[in-house]
């Protein structure tokens, strides 16, 4: 091969490499554009849409998927209280007609609980399942009113940090750790010595707890124990709650380890 031919060959090879690179780049760009998450199998609606649907008096079931005590404390007016866990357990808590419009909502913007419930409803064969986008926070921020069936007087429930709780467990023997997360989350991991009374069953099971102990409530991230604590306070319990919940506990475990 002469020098000129070799040069030509190199040029051709460079050309091929360049074209391949451009192709890969374009393919990557195309893929980026495509890699959106698959849309959920339920319909997501916003607060004004739900408001309009309810005002139109259509035959719809709007379901609050929080626990009973939370739902009765505050909910969107005219809605039902069916905890997410109950929906997951059995379809009997949902309307009989599979073509009934169902709207599920919960307390957080992430709508984790309503989405879980929506997933279950779709599995049961319900065809018109909706989730309120942004949940109750979005409803409230839109300026719509709420209703209270059995409002819990807000108490002063001290939050203890994980490190303080660890210390308390060493120093005191009257502490009763109560994990209010679902049975499933509890099984996946919990603080040693805790009993599990899921929040959605708390109103039926609180009497199992002795009144002479200081109850420390534990949840996922510390958002749900305040109301549960206030509820238990009305029932005569001394209550504290774990700041940042299991997340806070996991953080100090990481540090200690």
């Amino acid at each position, binding site marked *: 091969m002469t020098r000129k031919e070799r040069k030509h060959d190199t040029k051709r090879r460079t050309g091929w490499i360049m074209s391949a690179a451009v192709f890969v780049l374009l393919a990557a760009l195309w893929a980026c554009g495509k890699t959106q998450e698959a849309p959920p199998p339920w319909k997501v609606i916003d607060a004004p849409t739900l408001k309009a649907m309810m005002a139109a008096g259509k035959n719809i079931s709007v379901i609050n998927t929080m626990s009973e005590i939370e739902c009765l404390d505050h909910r969107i007016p005219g809605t039902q209280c069916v905890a997410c866990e109950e929906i997951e357990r059995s379809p009997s808590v949902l309307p009989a007609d599979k073509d009934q419009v169902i709207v599920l909502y919960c307390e957080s913007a992430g709508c984790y609980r309503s989405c879980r419930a929506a997933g279950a409803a779709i599995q049961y064969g319900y065809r018109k399942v909706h989730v309120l986008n942004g949940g109750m*926070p979005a409803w409230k921020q839109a300026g719509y009113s709420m209703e209270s069936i059995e409002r819990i007087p807000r108490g002063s429930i*001290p*939050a203890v940090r994980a490190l303080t709780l660890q210390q308390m467990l060493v120093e005191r023997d009257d502490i009763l750790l109560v994990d209010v997360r679902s049975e499933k989350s509890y099984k996946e991991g919990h603080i040693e010595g805790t009993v599990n009374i899921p929040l959605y069953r708390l109103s039926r099971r609180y009497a199992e707890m002795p009144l002479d102990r200081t109850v420390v409530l534990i949840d996922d991230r510390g958002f749900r124990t305040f109301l549960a604590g206030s509820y238990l306070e009305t029932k005569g319990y001394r209550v504290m709650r774990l700041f*940042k919940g299991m997340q806070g506990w996991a953080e100090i475990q990481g540090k200690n380890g």
Partner: protein
Amino acid sequence: MKFIKARRSGVLLAGLIVLAAGLAILQTGQARATQDCRFCHDEPLYRFDFNHSIHASNGCTSCHVGITNIENHRDGKEKPAPVNCGSCHQEIGKEYQNNFHYIQEDFRCSDCHLNIHAIRKVENKNVKIAIIEKCTECHGNPDYTASGHGEAVLKGNQDAADCSDCHSLHSTRVFHISLEQYPAEAREFYTQKCKHCHADSAMMKRNNLSDRMVAYYEGTYHGKVQELGYPAPVAGCGDCHTKHNILPKKDSRSSIHPDNLKANCGRCHTGFHPRFLSYQAHPDYTDRAKYPALYFTFLLMGGLLVGTLAFFWLHTVLWWRKVYWEHHRMEIEGIVLPSVVATGEGLQQVERFSVKYRIMHVLLVLSFFTLVLTGFPLKYAGTEWAETLTRLWGGAHVAGLLHRSAAFLLIVGMAYVTLESLRFLFPRGEGKRGWFGRLIGPDSLFPNLKDLQDIKGMVRWYFNKGEAPKFDRWTYWEKFDFLAVFWGMFAIGGSGILLWKPEWSSYLVPGWVLNIAALVHSEEALLAALFIFTIHFFNTHFIPNKFPMDRLIFTGTYRVEELKEQRPLEYERLVAEGRLESMKREHPSIPIKLISATFGLGSLLLGLFLTVLILWSILFG
């Protein structure tokens, strides 16, 4: 006319009477309703305490609305609607709609404003203490109550922050740490809260604190990125001073106590040498006693900036004056330069810059603009254009990456030029022999005695005291341009490399040197930008006989006649050494000329535009 007036007054009077009657009926109605309510709700709270409360002028139905039939209500068939305090307290109601306590825990007014029926106005109430007491009912935060702020409030200081000063009262935002969704937003929010008080001169003076701390912080990398609106990767106030446990440096519990600094900085920075900790988070360049090294660097850099610019600006203005006047004279006398009306051999193009050097100059231009466009938004972080520019880049992070990439290109280019220079001085086969001659010879970019004489000659020429000096291959201002990049690379490049990975740099230099590096990097960048965009641009392109640009650096060739005119000594040398023939080239093609003009003029315009932005920021920023 009179009739109309009288009729108008009549209507007004009638209206007033109707209004008064309406109010009276309403009042009576309310009073009657209140009487009706008290028939059943007859506790002392409603019969006595309420009448002495702040809401006494309201009736029961002012707040408890929605009862249409009192018998139905008595029988438990009709309940009043939830109380909406926002119907009177509208502003607060609006704020409260986004309050975290409402959104997440469904707190209502009466959950904090307990015993609302008996609420009274307390004269001379210490509101700050009341707020702290209220919040700590649930948020028992020993960190805060034991901190500088909390302690000061409890001791009666009305300036120190209570909970609501940072978290707001009715519009409490949530940046709950467990959500980890808004670290940047939270950092921005709280940093602004700190700045609000700590930049308040009167308040800081009352409390024997410096009001300049905010400004000093804003002068650092942390502060500038924060101010640009991209607080995610840099420290806001609370990152170093913590959120609640804010104590003076002397206190061993303080996060900024020398014993705790390692852990404090270590929350963001990893893998640093202990001497990293001597970095100053809010240094005052003008404080000679406290920061002598910074103070003298500041003076030195300021002096260098002012000195260099003053000398060259004056030089440029005088030069421009001379050339412009000269042109004017030639215009009147009808004299045309031989290079303009060249014919025959004079039209022949000769090479001044080979393809390699033209490409290198283009790369230099590109990297320089990238550095300026990504670096200066940080330098002038408080300005609108800086924020817009950073947004265009796609955020401070992307701008930072591009800045480092361009710096890398420049460093590689500089290394290559250094290698070329060494090859020029010590060519293969020659070794060290004659290196000094080459160093100060006519083909070298190193200054020599002739340059001094040329400067003198130019100045004499400016003042009409003699002929313009005859130049060889490189003029003294071209040599300065070339060597300034070396100095610039030493100053900007060196400091930039130290700042690139400050934790690693701490193995070489202590933390306070990073403060100096930041200052040098920033000031030298300003000098470089202003030098290139004004002096280099004027000397090379905007001088009247080149205006609007000299395409030579992009096309690489010019006429023999131009060579003769601009660098007569070089021309004579080339002819004497018989090298002129080998330097003859084809006339540049139309595409090359078009690309050169577009790129060149684009760069010039961009440079001028940036100069306006920079000067604007210095003068009015």
